[in-house]
């Protein structure tokens, strides 16, 4: 799955996802990716976010909407992502999930839920401070 967030230089925001889902799903199953607020969400008044992982769990918590709402209240993007992951983990400690968050000033962050097989989450960043896209990693909570 790819989840993408773009903040235009003039402050407009957009977010999106594309996926072929999880392997061997029951036909008809859809995860979080195409659901606004779950797979991704954007609001020019705050920022945008996108989630990835186990869509059956993620879409029960609308993590992207929640992250954007945190940022609308002034929460730093990294902290917004962390708070979202923590909320889900209280119910599903073993869930696979990560979230990327960016606010309208260009600050960004990410968070993920730590599992034995998933301790770091990689995401890509491109902004005027760099001459090419850069892979960044965050340690999972």
């Amino acid at each position: 799955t790819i989840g993408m967030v773009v903040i235009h230089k003039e402050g407009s925001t957009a977010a999106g996802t594309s996926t072929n889902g999880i392997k061997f799903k029951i036909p008809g199953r859809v995860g979080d990716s195409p659901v606004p607020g779950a797979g991704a969400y954007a609001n020019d008044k705050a920022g945008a976010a996108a989630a990835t992982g186990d869509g059956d769990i993620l879409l029960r918590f609308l993590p992207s909407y929640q992250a954007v709402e945190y940022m609308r209240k002034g929460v730093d993007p990294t902290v917004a992502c962390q708070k979202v992951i923590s909320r889900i983990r209280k119910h599903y400690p073993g869930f696979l999930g990560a979230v990327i968050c960016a606010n309208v000033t260009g600050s960004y962050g990410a968070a993920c839920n730590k599992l034995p097989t998933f301790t770091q989450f990689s995401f890509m960043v491109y902004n005027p401070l760099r001459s090419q896209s850069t892979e960044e990693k965050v340690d999972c909570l």
Partner: protein
Amino acid sequence: SSVLPLVINTWAFKNATEAAWRTLASGGSALDAVESGCAKCEMEQCDGTVGFGGSPNERGETTLDAMIMDGTTMDVGAVGGLRRIKNAIGVARKVLEHTTHTLLIGESATKFAESMGFTSENLSTSASEAMYSDWLARNCQPNYWRKVTPDPSKHCGPYKPSGIMAQGNFPYKEVDVHGHD
């Protein structure tokens, strides 16, 4: 701000990031950038988790989900369980632009895509067919059924509800890190 514009995306899909950036650099909107970045991943079948030829379902078919959201207008276009169309994010963009709906699903979403000019083609590849054959050979393990008979932890379906199994405890099962939404 000096740190705008900004493109970020999940996982280390570098070419998708750069496609989005190029779109912005050539004067495209944030929405255009998201569409081109996700479309790049669909074409390149990023990690096998995006686009055609990945994640077959229980019948061996690959279907696609995509969504695009405009944070200025709060308009959204999305498709779920899209069959036989490779450019799912492109279809989602058409839902956003040419309908007042939010999410179209399944065969009807495919019909919509065809009406918008998208080509219908097989989403399976030799790799996804091999993945599916291997899963069948492993007695359909893993799968996402519970409280059914025959025992889904040992056997393939078809399954029926099981009253006896309903008494059991079914803890959450972790999803494969390489097979995510």
